[in-house]
């Protein structure tokens, strides 16, 4: 099937305005008759639920955490982009649009990215109105910093906790609606199935994580804002509870999963310390504003203290390879460059999987106090984990799985191919193409939540009758029975391995074979190993406790079961995409100096996979990508 993204036509700068006018509206008095289910309360979900509640819809919001304030958006550090051009350095909506398309290696839809760039300015205004304490100068004006992949300063920030402050802004707006009664919150509740009636999304099945009870919830529309799936690698920068479950349950009910192989490996993370580690910690990319990446030129120097390695024996590899962007090269490029140095046996630290990020030049230039002001909390975090003082000794960093550009396929209205099912933020595939630029995730989450979904959902709701399907429909009962059977099956495996042992096994296969560099052989190995681990899970896992109680092992087992099915589609997507682009690097497709080689003739499309059953071949659907405003070019940061 050739998919249609239903993007508006005409001059790109008019597309969103024209589309907003063309869409149908729901009369203010009728809005309260519609019930919308919002799953996830991060930036996209929190902002969306609050905005839809303000409009007068009847909203129910769900999150697995004990409060809507804890979604993993909160961990984003560096900042949020907007095309305000406050610094007068040549920024514009067009430039933000262009940088995002190019940064994504020409694998995103033009109109979606244009809209993102256009509403980026509204987001900053909205957050300021909520009381988000963005960094300001002494006169009181908003301050900006630079980020990877851009040559203008367009990133707004709140110390090293921008995600936290933006999420608390969205949370405050959501909280206000909860008090007003337009939004009902269901914390400690996990979506475990999508309910589809006659091909249309009409509700969800959830598990109450305190009592273990399964519950049905009907809705006239279901909106998933459930984040990304990089915990499929086991070790990642995501929170422990982040999973593919909600998105995968939707995929199993017919929603197409687009570009799963586009995952972002973030260059500035604290290296792994041992095999008992449970997660990896990211440090903001903003660190690369003032830090310089290097490794020793000679292998023999790798064990020396960094201070003992003289300047002429250091290889500032990013500055050498990419003189015009230097240490601010985009994430995919910086990550691969770090891997190359370590593969060349010039890595540092335990296991030699690390490179230095050095502040000495900046400390000499602006002083330690200024560096402390800019990154104090990050240095503190680094010291807590490594017991090293980065003011005195360069940090050690290494890439780690961080973000998924792929996600459920959606059209321009953020609606999936299942009518009534909308997908926002990291959970959809829409704007980042094959690589996301720094400070763009917060921008997308809030754009989708505050400014896109409140408009586009009306166009769908205006065409349906509210409340036609309720919890007494047979599909709800069937869904509960299926989930219940799956839960009981897991609890009765009574095997020998624990859930986390099997998750580690999956993660190690994914990291080695489907990680930063992928080959035909490695992907075929992964496709052999994943079903084996899945079989072992269903035959030899030990899931303790009972269904009707607070049972964290059961929660983790359910998420792992979904990762074990999803991982196969992920690897298949990577195998079929015979090109290198953005975060997807196939070793067969590279230039002589190791840069990614895209194949626009054969692969300038979105690959959306239709689930056909566990272990069965999924079906690929394509949405061709047309570039009318940006010229396809080799992405160069040299």
């Amino acid at each position, binding site marked *: 099937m050739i998919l249609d993204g239903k993007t508006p036509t005409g001059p790109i700068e008019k597309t969103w305005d024209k589309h907003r006018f063309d869409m149908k509206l729901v009369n203010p008095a009728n809005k309260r008759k519609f019930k919308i289910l919002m799953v996830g309360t991060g930036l996209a979900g929190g902002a969306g639920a609050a905005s839809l509640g303000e409009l007068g819809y009847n909203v129910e919001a769900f999150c697995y955490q004990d409060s809507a304030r804890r979604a993993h958006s909160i961990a984003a550090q560096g900042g949020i982009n907007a095309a305000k051009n406050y610094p007068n350095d040549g920024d514009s909506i067009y430039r933000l649009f262009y940088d995002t398309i190019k940064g994504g290696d020409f694998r995103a839809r033009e109109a979606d990215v244009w809209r993102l760039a256009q509403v980026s300015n509204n987001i900053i205004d909205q957050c300021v109105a909520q009381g988000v304490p*963005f960094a300001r100068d002494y006169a009181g004006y908003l301050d900006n910093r630079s980020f990877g992949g851009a040559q203008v300063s367009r990133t707004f920030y709140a110390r090293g906790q921008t995600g936290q402050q933006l999420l608390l802004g969205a949370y405050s707006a959501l909280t206000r609606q909860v008090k007003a009664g337009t939004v009902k919150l269901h914390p400690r509740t996990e979506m475990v199935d999508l309910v589809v009636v006659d091909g249309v999304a009409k509700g969800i099945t959830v598990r109450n994580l305190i009592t273990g009870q399964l519950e049905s919830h009907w809705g006239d529309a279901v909106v998933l804002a459930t984040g990304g799936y990089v915990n499929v690698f086991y070790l990642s920068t995501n929170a422990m509870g982040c999973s593919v479950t909600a998105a995968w349950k939707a995929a199993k009910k017919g929603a197409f999963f687009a570009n799963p192989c586009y995952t972002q490996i973030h260059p500035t993370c604290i290296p792994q310390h041992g095999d008992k580690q449970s997660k990896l910690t990211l440090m903001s990319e903003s660190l690369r504003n003032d830090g310089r990446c290097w490794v020793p030129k000679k292998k023999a120097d790798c064990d020396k203290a960094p201070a003992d390695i003289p300047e002429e024996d250091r290889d500032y590899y990013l500055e050498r390879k990419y003189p015009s962007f230097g240490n601010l090269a985009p994430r995919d490029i910086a990550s691969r460059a770090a891997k190359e140095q370590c593969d060349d046996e010039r890595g540092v630290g335990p296991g030699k999987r690390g490179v230095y990020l050095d502040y000495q030049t900046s400390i000499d230039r602006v002083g330690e106090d200024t560096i402390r002001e800019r990154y104090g909390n990050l240095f503190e975090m680094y010291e807590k984990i490594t017991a090293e003082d980065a003011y005195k000794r360069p940090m050690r960093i290494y890439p780690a799985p961080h973000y998924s550009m792929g996600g459920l396929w959606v059209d321009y209205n953020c609606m999936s191919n299942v009518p009534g099912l909308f997908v926002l933020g990291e959970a959809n595939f829409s704007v980042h193409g094959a690589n996301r630029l720094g400070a763009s995730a917060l921008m997308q989450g809030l754009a989708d939540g505050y400014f896109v979904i409140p408009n586009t959902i009306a166009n769908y709701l205006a065409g349906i009758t509210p409340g036609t399907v309720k919890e007494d429909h047979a599909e709800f009962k069937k869904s509960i029975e299926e989930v219940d059977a799956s839960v009981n099956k897991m609890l009765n495996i009574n095997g020998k391995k624990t859930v986390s042992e099997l998750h580690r096994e999956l993660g190690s296969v994914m990291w080695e074979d489907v990680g930063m560099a992928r080959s035909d052989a490695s992907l075929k190995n992964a496709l052999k190993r994943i079903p084996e681990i899945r079989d072992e899970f269903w035959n030899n896992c030990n899931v303790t406790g009972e269904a009707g109680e607070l049972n964290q092992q059961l929660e983790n087992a359910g998420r792992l079961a979904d990762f074990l099915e999803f991982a196969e589609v992920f690897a298949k997507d990577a195998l079929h995409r015979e090109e290198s682009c953005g975060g997807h690097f196939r070793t067969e497709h590279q230039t002589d100096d190791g840069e990614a080689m895209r194949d626009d003739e054969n692969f300038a499309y979105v690959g959306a996979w239709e689930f056909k059953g566990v272990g069965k071949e999924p079906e690929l659907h394509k949405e061709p990508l047309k570039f009318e405003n940006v010229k396809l070019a080799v992405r160069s940061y040299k």
Partner: protein
Amino acid sequence: MNLTLHVWRQKGPQDKGKLETYPAKGVSEDQSFLEMLDDVNEELIKSGKDPIAFDHDCREGICGMCSQVINGKPHGGQERTTVCQLHMREFNDGDELFIEPWRARAFPIHKDLIVDRTALEMVMQAGGYTSCHTGGVADGNALLIPKPVADYAMDAAECIGCGACVASCPNSSAMLYTSAKVSQLAVLPQGKGEAKARVKEMTDAMQNEGFGNCTNHYECQEACPKGISVKFIAKLNREYMKSMA
């Protein structure tokens, strides 16, 4: 290193609960405290016992989910550190650790180390926001907020809502938590309009939810993993007085 853990085990809110003793063997000093507990849980599962339930999520000190009292100190007592950021190099071979949940009337126990913090949500719902709605707001630079004011607001806004302040307070007061939001919004021009109603309603909610009053022990500031200062409690009191005028 090898440690002995005494962990609070409680099946549900009605259960009485008690401390159970478990060994933690072969602990690496590079492990985080929660990774050490993960290992203890793996051993419990393998010996057919129910693993210890505890709240955690981001494991990088920002989500506010983790909540354990270690040897009488919320989050273990290291300066500006959540449980998930606590590393085993802070402990010694042979140490005995007592691990308990947050204890406060307003935080009923769900299971083991997991408590119900809905009461904190209710305080925020009472007024922890500015009443702006999406769209139709002024340009971000239309309101000038000089750096010292923005910094003051940010110092307060760093609160992660974990509840360590409540757990550390002999009165189980939520004054530090409440004052942080009241102070942030009271100094910003966006929040000033509603400042009087906000402080009144959030303080009332705090009392209604079963939190005690502040009697200046300053344990909260000591326990706060984000270093929120008790000066905000003074600010809360001033704002409250102003609201009565």
